[in-house]
Each structure stands twice: as structure tokens, then as C-alpha cells.
């Protein structure tokens, strides 16, 4: 079974098993506050995706010092720019992942977070990330690896993040005038 079908199966199974709860979750979804305003022309990430990333990203970076902090919108812009350079197939997989996470069913069945993302505690987010990392399901492990690569890569590609890791950046080259 391929990954897309697998995701779809999980979603449809969840819908069947949830019954009335899904309606409540759906209601919760509508209570979401829109993500922080950002003039960047996002080509992949939707507002829903950014709401999700606003919750997950700080947990990914919770150990970093204040000096290292890279603004969330810069991280999201880097993520967006990275994704649109991936193959269309990979982009579709990531779209499925984000949609699934953003849906009530995804939160409930995969991330075990009952309320909507914005009211999830950082402890519960940390817990679900760790569970995904070490899950026996390939799908969840690859989802963790995907989010990890996008978020961590987007942070350490910025100079700010280098201040406390002992990396002073590339040597400065002086070019002789031709």
C-alpha cells in the first residue's frame, strides 16, 4: 500500500470510529485564531498549516537560547521556499500530512491532542512528537523526520542560529579587482 492510500485509510477509519465526536472537533476547528499576519506570498503553506506550525515549531526549538532565536515567519518562509522546490509527488505527500494534522481526525488519531492546536500545551505537543519519532508505524516516523528536516533546516540556515554553536560562518574572502 502506498503512503497516500495509507493516510487516506487512516483518515477514513478514524471518521468511522469517531461518530459524534468529529462534529465537536470540527466546531473546535472553527474557533481557531488566524495565524500572525505576514505579507509573504506563501505558495504552499496555508493559514491552517501555519497555525499548526506556530504550535509545533516552538516545541522543536524549545532548547535554543534567546540569542539564537529566528523569527517564526522567517522559518515558515524558508519552509515554504523549500517545499516548492521538491518533486510534485513529495509536495503531495506533504500536503496530505498537513491536511491530516490540521483535521480533527488527524489530531485525534495521530497526535492525541484533543483540543485544537492552539490550546494544546507544549508538553502534549512534545509528547506526540516523541511518540511519532519512535513509533512503530513508518508513516509516523517519516512524518516526524519530514517536519524535523523542514523546521530544523529552516532554522539553522539562518545566521542567528549559529551564535551559540561555535560557528562563525564562512571565511570572508577579499577578491582582487580584475
Amino acid at each position: 500500500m502506498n503512503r497516500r492510500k495509507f493516510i487516506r485509510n487512516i483518515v477514513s477509519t478514524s471518521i468511522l470510529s469517531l461518530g459524534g465526536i468529529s462534529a465537536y472537533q470540527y466546531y473546535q476547528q472553527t474557533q481557531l485564531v488566524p495565524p500572525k499576519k505576514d505579507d509573504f506570498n506563501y505558495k504552499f503553506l496555508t493559514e491552517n498549516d501555519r497555525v499548526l506550525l506556530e504550535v509545533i515549531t516552538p516545541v522543536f526549538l524549545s532548547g535554543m537560547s534567546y540569542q539564537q532565536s529566528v523569527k517564526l515567519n522567517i522559518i515558515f518562509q524558508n519552509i515554504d521556499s523549500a517545499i516548492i522546490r521538491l518533486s510534485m509527488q513529495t509536495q503531495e505527500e506533504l500536503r496530505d500530512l498537513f491536511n491530516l494534522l490540521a483535521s480533527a481526525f488527524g489530531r485525534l488519531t495521530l497526535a492525541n491532542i484533543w483540543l485544537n492546536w492552539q490550546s494544546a500545551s507544549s508538553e502534549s505537543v512534545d509528547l506526540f512528537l516523541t511518540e511519532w519519532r519512535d513509533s512503530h508505524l513508518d508513516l509516523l516516523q517519516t512524518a516526524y523526520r519530514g517536519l524535523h528536516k523542514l523546521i530544523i533546516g529552516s532554522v539553522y540556515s539562518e545566521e542567528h542560529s549559529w551564535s551559540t554553536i561555535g560557528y562563525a560562518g564562512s571565511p570572508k574572502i577579499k577578491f582582487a579587482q580584475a
Partner: protein
Amino acid sequence: MFLSEKNTKNYAKDLPAEQIDCDVAIIGSGAGGGIVAEILARSGLSVVIVEEGPLRTSGDFKMREKQAYADLYHEMAGRQTIDKGIQILQGRAVGGSTTVNWTASFRTPKQTLEFWEKNFSIKGLSKDELSPWFSWVETRLNISPWAIAPNKNNQLLAVGAKKLGWSYDVISRNVNGCANLGYCGMGCPINAKQSMLVTTIPSAIQNGAHLISRARAESLIIDNEKVKGVWLSSMNELGQVKQKNVTKIIAKKVILSAGAIGSPSILLRSKAPDPYNTLGKRTFLHPVTASIAKMKEKVEAFYGAPQSIYSDEFLWRDGVSGELGYKIEVPPMHPVLSSTLLVNHGKQHAELMKNFAFYQANLALLRDGFNEDSVGGQVSLDVNDYPRLDYKISDTLWRGLRKAMLSIAELQFAAGAQQVLPLHMDASFQSSWLKTKLLIDKFPSEKLRWQTMSAHVMGGCGMGGDESISVVNSSGTHHQLENLSVIDGSLFPTSLGVNPQLTIYAIAAKLSSQLVQEMNGQLPDDLLNLRL
């Protein structure tokens, strides 16, 4: 010599030609295509070089991962096998991977060439027959052993190997006026690296060749088992197809040099005959396992020539076709690539990154394809006609990965490591060799847990004398289709056991010189003498 704008077109911006007529269309501008282009153009043939990636030059190379991965690599330097078990670093720009590789240059091992001759009936590529071609390329690209002291990352490999009594030596590099910066992987900012971008491609253009960047070869034009040309699609600045089949190239000969994922994919899209079901099979990766050591003193593995010391202690240890042998080298470490290999989040990840400057990294690349249980991967097309690679890790390869991991970790402790972290999702830093050994022995052989990588994609259009186990013959000519050759790393019927660029260069020089003579071109004297 540097590239001028003359004779170059960028299909992301420029208006594509409807039709182009030429003697030879070369698909790809990397280690294979670059050499072929220079030799054919110098021989008076009219040549068009087609490159999927962008044309970038030294002024564009900022020694920043953010820019380099987006611009110069396939899929943001994060190409993966279908099951996401192996991450593949592969260049995608004019110059191909030679624009971003770490410059390690090795002649093909004798054992590999003998294995090819014996098992795949390959003719004309013995050690002696290739030797003059190696010499020619080594002169052309200024390849010689690195004469400057290795950086600390490499030096520690030498220290550990010496302590354990393992063989080690200095790596040859294709550089001229190298400033020992350490950013080869992001494109050389001072044109010291003698990649195709600054050597053969400009020389081909000076000799009349045309270069089209941001253009993908969509499919071959085939008429009655004869190749007549190739259709090109334009690509946008993001590397996505802009418009399909915008240009028709009519050529006497088409040469596929699109690499071991690209070349088979063009043949698949063209529905080329494949009577024995060999196309896209036996794709090899030199699967890499790695470990990180925390040293007492700063290593700063981000500065200095990335690869200058290697150890072949275990490359042929169990014979050519026994347990998989491995070559030990070091990778350079820069923030993005390193931070994404430390697969943790929150406090744990930040703690790991704190000691970044103190880390030394070893890698072992495994020689796949020499053993019956090591058949490599398979290239196929996804629903968008884009290539994908299925590569399953066999039991033999798992044993090899574990043995290799043990060796590189042992070497790090011998070199004075305080702690070692084998790159596996179930690992943490260990403070003694004994503890590390026990940990590695217990690692589950699971594709997503064991962090496996590759920077060398080979095979998929294997050459050989027997049609039933190969795609092209020993000259690179397609078995079924006329006017079509493959000249790049996809020719290899197994992996090599060494970093592939020099092998590709030498074989490309030899095969393209043969082609010139078949096409009645005027081979220049320096090459003509080698043919005699």
C-alpha cells in the same frame, strides 16, 4: 577559463527555439556530459548540451547552505529513496554534481575493473587500457594528492587509523589554487575546483557548443528503432517543469549523460525497448553510514578541504564478492546538514548542537553490487513522469552497515574521542568504545532508524557484452536503439568502491573519443595519441 553568455540559453527566462539541428545532443553537463562535450566540440562536431539545472558561476556561490541547496541540488539536497530509507545528495546545475562535490579523485580499483570484465563481459576498460585516459584527465583537471596539511576533521581519521594500525593515505583532488576554505559542497567561490563548470563546459562553448540550461530532456524521438533527436521541456526557476516539449532537437546522435537516476528515466519516458527488463535496474548508491565524535578540542569540521584522508583498510577485506567492503572518509560538517542529521527536537537537539564545533565525523561508504545478495535499486517513474528510486537494504548490506559503523566508531575512540554518537535513531552519545560496540551490536536493522545516506548514484543503464544483463555495450552504445549512447555513471554494472568522479571522467574521455572516430570527426592530437 570562464563561461560567457555567448552560446548559452536559460529556458526559465529565454524564449525556447522551436527546433535545433546538430550533430550531437548531450543530455546532462556533469562528469560524463562535460567531458564528452569538450572532446566532441574540439573534434569539430556541432554540439548542444542540455542541462536541467541552472547556470550558476563563482559569483553566485555564497558559501551558504540556504542558497546552495535550493539552487544547486536535486530536491533541496534531500532527495530520498521511495521508502525514505536513504537520503541522496545529488547536484543539479551546470557542471552537475562536479559543481558541488568534495573533489575526492580516485582511479577505479583494479578489482572493480576485473570484476566487470569477468562478470559482465566488458571490453576495453582494463586497468592498462584505461591508464592513459586517467593520465589525460588528471592533467586536464589538475588532479594530484592534496599537498597541504589536512584539516583537523581529516587529520583525526589519520590519527585513529595509525593508532589501530589501519592503512590510510592522502586523497587526490581536482583543484588549482585552492584556498582551503571548505565550502566545495556549495560551489567553489574562487573557481579553484576544476569542476566541469570551469573547465570542459567553457572549452566546449569556446569550440562552438551551445548550452541550454533549465531544460529537461523529456523523451527521445524514435523512428523504427533509430533515435532521431530529443524533445525538451522548459523548467522554471524552482526546478519544476514550465512547459512540456517546447523544443525539438534533431541530432545524428544523442548521448545520455543525465546521471544514474536521470538517464534511465529518459529511456523510461521514451518507452525505449527493454527486452530483458534491465533498464533502471542495478542502481547502486555506495550506501553511507556515519558517526559523530565529540573531541576535547575544537575540530571545526566546517573549514578546510572537506576530504583529504581516507582508509581502505576494509574495502576488500573479505574478497571482491564476499561481505561488503567499505571505504572510510570524513564528511564536512555545516549547520543545516548536521542539524538535520541529529534527529531530535527541543532541549535534546539544542544540547547536541552546542558542541557542534567540537565534532569530528567519520563515514563509511559500502561497495554495493559485487555480491549476489546486493542487486541495488530500481529507477521507475511516478505519476508525474518524474524519476524515483526504490532501494531495499538487503541482509548483506545490513551486515556491512553494522560492521562499518563499528569500524568508524572504534577509529574515533582511537583518535581520542571523548564520546561517540553513531547515527542511528536509537543511539545516544557513548563514552567508551565498549559501550558503543554493545549499542551498535543491538541496533535494529530498520531502514528508517538507521540513518543511511548516499552521495554516489551509479548504474541503471549498465554496460556489458551480454544483452540479457545489460542496457548498453562496452562502448556505451544502446543494445537496441541506433544513434544512442549512454556516457555517465549509469554505465557502471556495480558500484566502484571509490568516489566516482574520476572513473566517469576517464571512461567518458575514452568512449567519446571512440565516438568521434565513428562519426568521422577530427580528434585533437592529445587525444588521438591515446587512441594509438
